[in-house]
């Protein structure tokens, strides 16, 4: 694994942008407006901007850490930095984190599918279908995933555009008074966004496969910008249409929003969104699953990613059924988000610091050899 990857396995930086967008925007987008407006109320849009801006620092540290070990993943270099025992523990937390978030996003996905499309079909069968599709994508590898993501990004853009007509019926008084909720509420709201922003940490794993390593930070910032704008757009439109008070009673505001639009001859427009959202959520779930199976493969030094994906299957099925109802699901998302916050915002700077102190990393390795 330490050898330089051949050019054919590499993905372009442009593709990295789309991978990050697709992994991040997924299951979170449907419930985000409700969750965030619960705390930040009419100033939710500021909270999202704030929540997005935290990631600039995190992405910077992830990039710096990665460029210290350009041919390795976090599973490999955590052992170099922290020693074998501590390193293994850290790797294991990353593995656990990626499995949990996979299971959780699948859970949210299946909840929506069951509610809107297939209320009578057993949940486990619906689950199996999406998992089989994920397994197929994982078997095809990162390059295929990169291509699929960039293709779907452009194909799925209409899903966001269909919301535009609701702007006509929006009430801009819903946003006033600006900054009226208080600084603390805005700050709290920005922390709630974390679940919806999880995903860019995939860079920690796919760093060795990216062509121009120098531009990774730039690429990830572009994707962060697009993600933040997407969320901002959705939040502004939903709050503008529903208002903060109504929003609390709507489970999936982004879907319900489209009920407001009536096109002659086409009964339910929200169905169109759900239809496209299946693909949006799939790319996110599949990427998380890829992340999980890849980190497991690295952790147990398995060569076959598909094999590790199969190993993970029972764990994902187990985790899938842990939350008993929808309320518990959202509670779990908060826990995972906090867990992720530590892993993504605290650990990479810490690792970077230790690397610098111990004189490890790219520059010193280059000197030794």
């Amino acid at each position, binding site marked *: 694994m330490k050898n330089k990857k051949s050019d*054919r396995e590499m993905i*372009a930086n*442009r*593709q990295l942008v789309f991978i990050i967008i697709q992994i991040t925007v997924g299951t979170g987008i449907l419930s985000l407006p409700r969750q965030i407006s619960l705390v930040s109320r009419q100033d939710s849009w500021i909270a999202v901007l704030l929540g997005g801006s935290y990631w600039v620092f995190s992405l910077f540290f992830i990039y710096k850490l990665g460029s210290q070990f350009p041919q390795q993943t976090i599973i490999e270099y955590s052992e170099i930095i922290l020693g074998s025992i501590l390193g293994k523990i850290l790797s294991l937390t990353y593995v656990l984190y990626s499995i949990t978030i996979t299971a959780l996003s699948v859970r949210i996905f299946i909840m929506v*599918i069951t509610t809107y*499309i*297939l209320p009578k*079909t057993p949940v486990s069968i*619906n689950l199996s*279908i*999406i998992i089989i*599709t994920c397994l*197929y*994508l994982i078997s*095809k*590898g990162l*390059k*295929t995933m*990169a*291509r*699929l993501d*960039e*293709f*779907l990004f*452009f194909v799925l853009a209409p899903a966001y555009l269909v919301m535009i007509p609701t702007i006509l019926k929006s009430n801009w008084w819903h946003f006033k008074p600006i900054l009226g909720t208080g600084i603390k509420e805005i700050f709290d709201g920005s922390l709630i966004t974390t679940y919806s922003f999880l995903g860019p940490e995939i860079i920690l794993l796919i760093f060795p496969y990216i062509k121009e390593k120098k531009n990774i930070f730039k690429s990830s910032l572009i994707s962060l910008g697009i993600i933040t704008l997407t969320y901002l757009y959705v939040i502004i439109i939903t709050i503008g249409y529903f208002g903060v008070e109504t929003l609390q009673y709507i489970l999936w505001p982004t879907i319900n929003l489209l009920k407001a639009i009536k096109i002659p*001859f*086409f*009964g*339910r427009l929200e*169905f169109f969104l759900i*239809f496209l959202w*299946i*693909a949006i959520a*799939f790319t996110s779930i599949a990427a998380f699953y890829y992340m999980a199976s890849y980190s497991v493969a690295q952790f147990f030094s398995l060569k076959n990613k598909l094999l590790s994906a199969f190993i993970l299957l029972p764990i994902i099925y187990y985790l899938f059924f842990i939350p008993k109802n929808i309320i518990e699901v959202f509670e779990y998302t908060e826990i995972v988000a906090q867990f992720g916050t530590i892993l993504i915002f605290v650990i990479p700077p810490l690792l970077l610091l230790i690397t610098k102190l111990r004189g490890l990393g790219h520059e010193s390795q280059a000197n030794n050899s």
Partner: protein
Amino acid sequence: MWNRIDKFFGISQPKKETTEHINIAKEKIVISEDLETNLNNLQANLSDSVDFNSKDILLGGNQNYKATVTYIVSIVNQQYLQQEILKPLMLNIKFTSPEDTKKNIKQLVQQLPLPIGQTSFIGSLNEAIGEILEGKVVLFINHFDQAFVLDIKELASRSVETPQIESATRGPQEAFTENLELNISLIRKRIRDNNLMIEVHKVVARTKTDLGVCYINDLADQEILKQLNNRINNLDLDGVVDTGYLDQYFQDNWKTPFPIFQNTERPDKAIHNLLEGKILLVLDGTPFVSIIPTTFIQFFQTPEDYYDIFYVGSAIRILRLIATFITVSLPSLYISLVSFHHELLPTDLALTIATTRQEVPFPSYLEAVIMEVSLELLRESGIRLPGAIGQTIGIVGGLVLGEAAVNAGLVSPPMVIVVAITAISSFVIPDYEAAIPLRLLRFPLMILASFFSVYGIMVGWLFILIHLCSLESFNQPYFAPFAPIKVTDLKDSIIRVPLRLMGQRPHSTANQQKDRQTRKGESKDEE
């Protein structure tokens, strides 16, 4: 995998023979000075065939110069042989001194005024057998350790006709034929460029078919050429009859329903691709020329797109993509709407469909599968039947059967409409080969839709998309201008921009010269 299964059940595998073992003669035999030995050796290898002929002659009527002309009757121009070869050999050779045969014989034969373009001397008998089987005449002379080869082959072939499969409204109406030389001449006459390279390989042990590799040297990707040569050399096959054989062996991923190479019988299409830096495989004996590498979108393009005004070309391309969408997913969408989500339909329409379905005994998915299968049956029988009867099948099958099924209350009229639209759309896809997998894909989608409604359809689409994204044709992405996205190539994909704006060759097929003309365009590579 089958090997493993066979091993598991204890079935022994026949040992794989390499191509050398199938060869007629194992060791190399040199042509000896003794005429009898040569003939005996030849006869040992060829005597069984009825059409093998050897005729003893005396060069210049001189008793001292025995010679034998060997050839295969069925593939040699006999009249020409008698008039222009045998006659001069028997009558026109003048010997000055009867003694120094060995030195002079070569010179004498060479100097003979034979009106034949391709002649040569060969020293090995194996080679001689190969030449005879190819339709050449080989002359053995006593006391001379070389054989003289004269190319006067005449193979049965048809003349250039109009395209049968890829008919076009506009543009050249010539089509490739089964004859390699004729095909190459069709290409050559359209490109008068000294960089047009044509290499001919003899492939495959038994049929020893000529395979022409045709490309423009300063446009084609050298990396792909190298790979192609590699794959040609590693070809381990008994015989090739059509380029389809080669396609399946040259594929990067053979577990795919999609055609990885495009085949065309239109020289203008072939030329267009040559000019984009692609490579043509011209196989002797088939009128279909393979284009390497191929992208998926190519199957939806026809030469007329470029001949017509770009509005028309673009509109027709969009129409084709809509047709593709309908072919793949209309029946499954219908199933999911009717059996799961009738509330999605406008009330009036839902009521209309419900009324027509009232007396139908089958659930909608079963109805759809029955109808689609019978449609495929109709299509296949239409192809197999001779032209005149083929139309009857269309009338009997399509009109009579459809009408009767509706009247009998077995099938609902909307279903018939859906099936008919699907059928019509599937014929809009210009490439027959690409249309087959797309048509077949609607069956898995219908099954998915009948179980999982639109969720199943989306999953099915994702499966297809993942598969398309993973495919490669000679290491070039198959789904190219879309995934990975090549912005500059999108100008010639779903739409076609005016030719003026197509100053650059497609980047998907990596090639050497980006600009088509001297006109300057930005040649910044995307990936």
